[in-house]
């Protein structure tokens, strides 16, 4: 009984891991996303039927590509009322042909097939939400139902979103010939950004949606690993995977039992995932040897400094502040400056940090975290009334109940402190 279960688990894992490469290759053959997906689906059905009896093929991916391609051609001929292919049992005897295809897979197509498949999903014309949904459906192979659950929308709405994205992609006319060096690196950057988006969808979940959305983080890590396997010497891709692993390693400590946010300083570091941290550290270590810095590497290095501190007081804030300075130069944004301000407050105190963020007030007026950080700094400076005002603004802008609850906790503490120490301050 357990044997059957483990058989199915094996087949499942084989189909999932073969998917990007197989669908990528089928897309190159058919030049049509729907056709490629359908062909892969057919191949999977065939695999579920024959693998438990015949045992696994020597190269599962090559098998799926070949059976998928034949079924796709078969379908196309049927549609065109042309002659049908030979019967199934002829093509299911795939041993020789499989070897031949496997050999070809080792060639250069392999990398570009997967990159193209990923790149199609992050076409610049697609809004971010459609990019993510399409990648999860096409590359990861999640069901529409699973994706809908992660995005907290109905299955019908998600179905529609994916269909719309596919239509846009079909019109977009992505070239199928092997990309040149410049184009390849542009595709790589776009795909990395899309993977980061997928991760953030999971990472920014809170409250009731944590369980539903956490798998998005795992999926993003799997995709980043896939990308790094294709481009093993790209320091930014090492940085991306490192960043995702180091962030996700804290997942078990980021929320309390009620789904409330636990700040980094207050997290139980014993609940951080040690193997994930080890892998993330190893990757950023490797990446920095290349001396080709980039935003993912810098962010990973910051995350690594947090992960390496066994206690919050051991955090190397001076180094973190320097890294945020670097990030500001590479990717200037008021949000990065806001993050640097937090490091500045630890190194030079709250006034220096407040001076740094006050000029951002206009640009970050609608940003929840700005008011939260500003409130905390004012509080440290003993400017309780202004702090209260900043926290109120933060609550008004909170995107999730957990965010709102977190700020409310600050306010409660503030009120309690004020009542308790009011006389002392008044003197």
């Amino acid at each position, binding site marked *: 009984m357990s044997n059957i279960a*483990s058989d199915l*688990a094996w087949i499942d*894992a084989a189909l999932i*891991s073969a998917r990007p490469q197989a669908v990528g290759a089928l897309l190159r053959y058919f030049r049509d996303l729907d056709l490629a997906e359908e062909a892969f689906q057919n191949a999977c059905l065939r695999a579920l039927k024959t693998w438990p009896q015949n045992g696994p093929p020597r190269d599962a991916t090559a098998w799926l590509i070949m059976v998928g391609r034949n079924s796709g051609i078969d379908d196309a001929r049927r549609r065109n009322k042309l002659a049908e292919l030979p019967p199934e049992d002829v093509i299911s005897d795939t041993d020789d042909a499989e070897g031949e295809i496997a050999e070809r897979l080792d060639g250069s197509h392999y990398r570009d097939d997967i990159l193209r498949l990923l790149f199609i999903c992050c076409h610049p014309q697609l809004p971010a939400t459609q990019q993510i949904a399409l990648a999860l459906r096409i590359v990861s192979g999640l069901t529409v139902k699973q994706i809908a659950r992660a995005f907290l929308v109905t299955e019908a709405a998600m179905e529609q979103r994916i269909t719309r994205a596919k239509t846009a992609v079909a019109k977009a006319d992505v070239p199928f010939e092997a990309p040149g060096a410049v184009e390849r690196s542009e595709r790589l950057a776009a795909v990395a950004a899309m993977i980061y988006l997928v991760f953030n969808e999971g990472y920014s979940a809170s409250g009731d949606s944590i369980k539903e959305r956490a798998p998005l983080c795992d999926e993003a890590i799997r995709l980043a*690993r896939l990308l790094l396997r294709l481009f093993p*010497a790209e320091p930014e891709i090492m940085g991306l995977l490192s960043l995702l692993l180091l962030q996700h390693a804290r997942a078990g400590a980021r929320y309390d039992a009620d789904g409330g946010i636990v700040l980094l300083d207050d997290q139980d570091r014993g609940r951080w995932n040690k193997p994930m941290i080890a*892998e993330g550290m190893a990757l950023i270590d*490797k990446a920095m040897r290349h001396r080709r810095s980039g935003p993912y590497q810098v962010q990973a290095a910051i995350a690594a400094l947090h992960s390496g501190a066994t206690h919050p007081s051991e955090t190397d804030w001076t180094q973190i502040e320097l890294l945020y300075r670097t990030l500001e130069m590479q990717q200037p944004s008021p949000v990065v400056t806001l993050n640097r301000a937090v490091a500045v407050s630890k190194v030079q105190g709250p006034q220096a940090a407040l001076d740094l963020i006050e000029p951002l007030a206009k640009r970050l007026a609608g940003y929840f975290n700005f008011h939260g950080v500003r409130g905390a700094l004012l509080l440290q400076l003993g400017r309780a009334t202004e702090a209260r005002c900043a926290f109120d603004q933060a609550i008004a802008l909170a995107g999730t109940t957990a965010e709102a609850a977190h700020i409310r906790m600050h306010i409660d503490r503030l009120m309690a402190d004020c009542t308790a120490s009011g006389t002392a301050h008044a003197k």
Partner: protein
Amino acid sequence: MLYAILCYHDEAMVGSWSKDHDDAVMEKLAVVQDNLAKQGRLGPVARLLPTTAATTLRKEGDPPLVLDGPFAETKEQLLGFYIIEAKDLDDALEVARDLGRANPGGSYEIRPVGVFHPGSVAS
């Protein structure tokens, strides 16, 4: 005689296991390992991080070249190893079969150990 059991498997596939499946496999392997440990036949055991974390030092040049990734691009990757004590090859194969029942798929390379230093690092 000491034998190394080198564990090869398709890394992408092992990486696609669900956490539950991974935990279940590890639990079953632990039973086999405990058994060996009780008989005083279990040496160091290691599960390696993915090959994306690997670096290769090619020593034919001077200075040696540092390359990202594993030594060789292969269909199956070295994912871990055991050092065990076995009477002979049959005995070592028996252990490998036990491990294989706990963790089907992939291959084990059974290699007699020439020189062995138990080392001094703490786990």
